[in-house]
């Protein structure tokens, strides 16, 4: 009987297509990219071995360091906000809307599946200052504020990117965390209520500790995704004004395709990979701790 599942021929036939595509289009290019970090040039002009000079350049390049810092700042701020917004909504679904939450959940989930470029164009029109005034500027002026060029000022541009991405992702995290909260056993909640816990106390002492595993995976899921932010920034600010909102992903794209420096682009990509690797190792360590608890 076990012999049937030790069928080598079947294994080979079923695994080969996927493994071949994966190896040739992902594994080999990844390793190939690592060798690019020691070269300069591009696909059209050819390559030249330059040793560690790309790496030295990276750490002396202010734009690159700024991009690295922007990536980290964006990832941390985004992760905190989107998970907090999602958790708040999930608690709201469970305790306030209870079993009537389906329609609200669906509506708030809408933005998750919309094409990023369309959403970004929408947001840039909402916050526009010239040649036409977007709704946000109009309302701001009613309230006595000044006409603000939101996307033309570095600090506000950063927060608009954040606002847009929270808008896009909160529905996803709400549903994800809702799925975790629903699994808290009813009798635990009920006995806590009988013991006199209610409102904040119930949330802080019972709900948060019991939903910690799913909260933790949401956090890490989020960090890993936000470190790779590209679409929303390209479409909303294109890294600007100047390079104020340029993450590593976009900087890599620019150096590689606008300036044709494949070696340096690969170095930037590799730094990002190392960042993601550190986060992923952290994922596995914390997940393992959950299992043993």
């Amino acid at each position: 009987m076990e012999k049937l599942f030790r069928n080598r021929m079947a294994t080979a036939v079923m695994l080969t297509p996927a493994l071949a595509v994966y190896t040739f289009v992902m594994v080999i290019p990844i390793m190939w990219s690592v060798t690019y970090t020691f070269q300069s040039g591009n696909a059209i002009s050819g390559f030249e071995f330059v040793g560690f000079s790309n790496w030295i350049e990276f750490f002396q390049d202010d734009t690159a360091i700024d991009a690295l810092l922007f990536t980290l700042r964006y990832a941390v701020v985004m992760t905190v906000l989107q998970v907090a917004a999602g958790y708040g909504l999930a608690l709201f679904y469970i305790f306030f809307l209870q079993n009537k939450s389906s329609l609200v959940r669906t509506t708030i989930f809408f933005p998750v599946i919309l094409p990023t470029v369309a959403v970004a164009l929408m947001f840039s029109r909402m916050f526009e200052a010239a040649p036409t005034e977007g709704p946000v500027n109009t309302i701001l002026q009613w309230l006595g504020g000044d006409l603000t060029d939101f996307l033309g000022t570095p600090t506000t541009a950063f927060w608009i990117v954040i606002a847009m991405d929270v808008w896009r992702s909160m529905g996803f995290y709400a549903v994800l965390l809702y799925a975790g909260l629903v699994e808290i056993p009813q009798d635990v909640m009920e006995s806590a209520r009988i013991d006199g816990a209610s409102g904040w106390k119930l949330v802080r002492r019972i709900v948060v500790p019991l939903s910690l595993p799913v909260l933790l995976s949401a956090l890490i899921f989020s960090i890993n995704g936000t470190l790779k932010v590209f679409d929303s920034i390209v479409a909303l600010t294109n890294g600007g004004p100047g390079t104020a909102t340029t993450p590593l992903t976009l900087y890599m794209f620019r150096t590689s395709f606008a300036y044709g420096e494949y070696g340096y682009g690969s170095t930037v990509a590799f730094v990002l990979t190392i960042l993601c690797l550190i986060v992923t190792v952290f994922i596995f360590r914390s997940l393992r701790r959950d299992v043993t608890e």
Partner: protein
Amino acid sequence: MTSAPTTTAAEPRARGRRSRRPLKNRLRRVPGWIGIGLVLLTVVYPMLWILMGSFKTQPEFLSEPFWALPQQWNFDNYVSAFVDGGLGTYIRNSIIAVFPALALVLIFGSAAAFALQVLVWKGRSVVLILFLAGIMVPTQMILLPLFTVYYQIGITSTIWPLIITYTAIGLPLTVFMLATFMRGIPREVFEAATLDGASIWRIFANVTLPLVRNAIFTVALVQFFFLWNDLLIALTFVTSADLRTIQVGLLNFTGQYGAVNYGPLFAGISVTVFGTLALYIFLNKKVMTGLTSGAVKG
């Protein structure tokens, strides 16, 4: 589901002063409803604003306030978006790039998941981890070598680079998720099928696939939205204007019209936003349950 204990716990106490309690309760819930109303407004309003804008003319954009309703309800902007903006071409390109890749991802992915999870051989866990690693590595790591190769074999002016890259990008998560779902099938099912004389191929096609049908549907949806909304890969490998996908096309919409011709731009955004939305509403239940169960397990 949480409603049951709340009402039962509150009932005995509430019975004594039945007259005052409901009103007080209802008033206490007002801030909550206002809060959720505001959230819903921020989600729905931008989309409605775009929809309204798609019917407006250029002078209306420049002189009327943002809340003004369009003065006419015709589809001029939509016609302009499709005819001058080439929206139809972008949609066609997205379809011919995404669907073949999606089909390949599902076929290759489910076979590989079966080989890695149900079949028994040495080293399968190592291969599974190898696939898992692909989820973490940023796409930027594979772009440059792939571009070099596509350029050298001369396929940069076709849709093939997109299909090939999408297939590879979709595989890690698909293999991982389907393997997770196949792990949930009790071993006894396979044993029973074996005793009935089924071959390994029949166990795959007639036993395993029907059992994970919902999971395959879920994975297909997740991957569809993921590939359909891709920008990075399309931006890298699309070198000519008539190969642009929806996302790349929309990004260049502004440029094409010099950032001032709002009507067709709003029409273009409307088509993509509400088209995707219609698809989503159609498949809604599956997306929600699918995304979460996949994400929690993954």
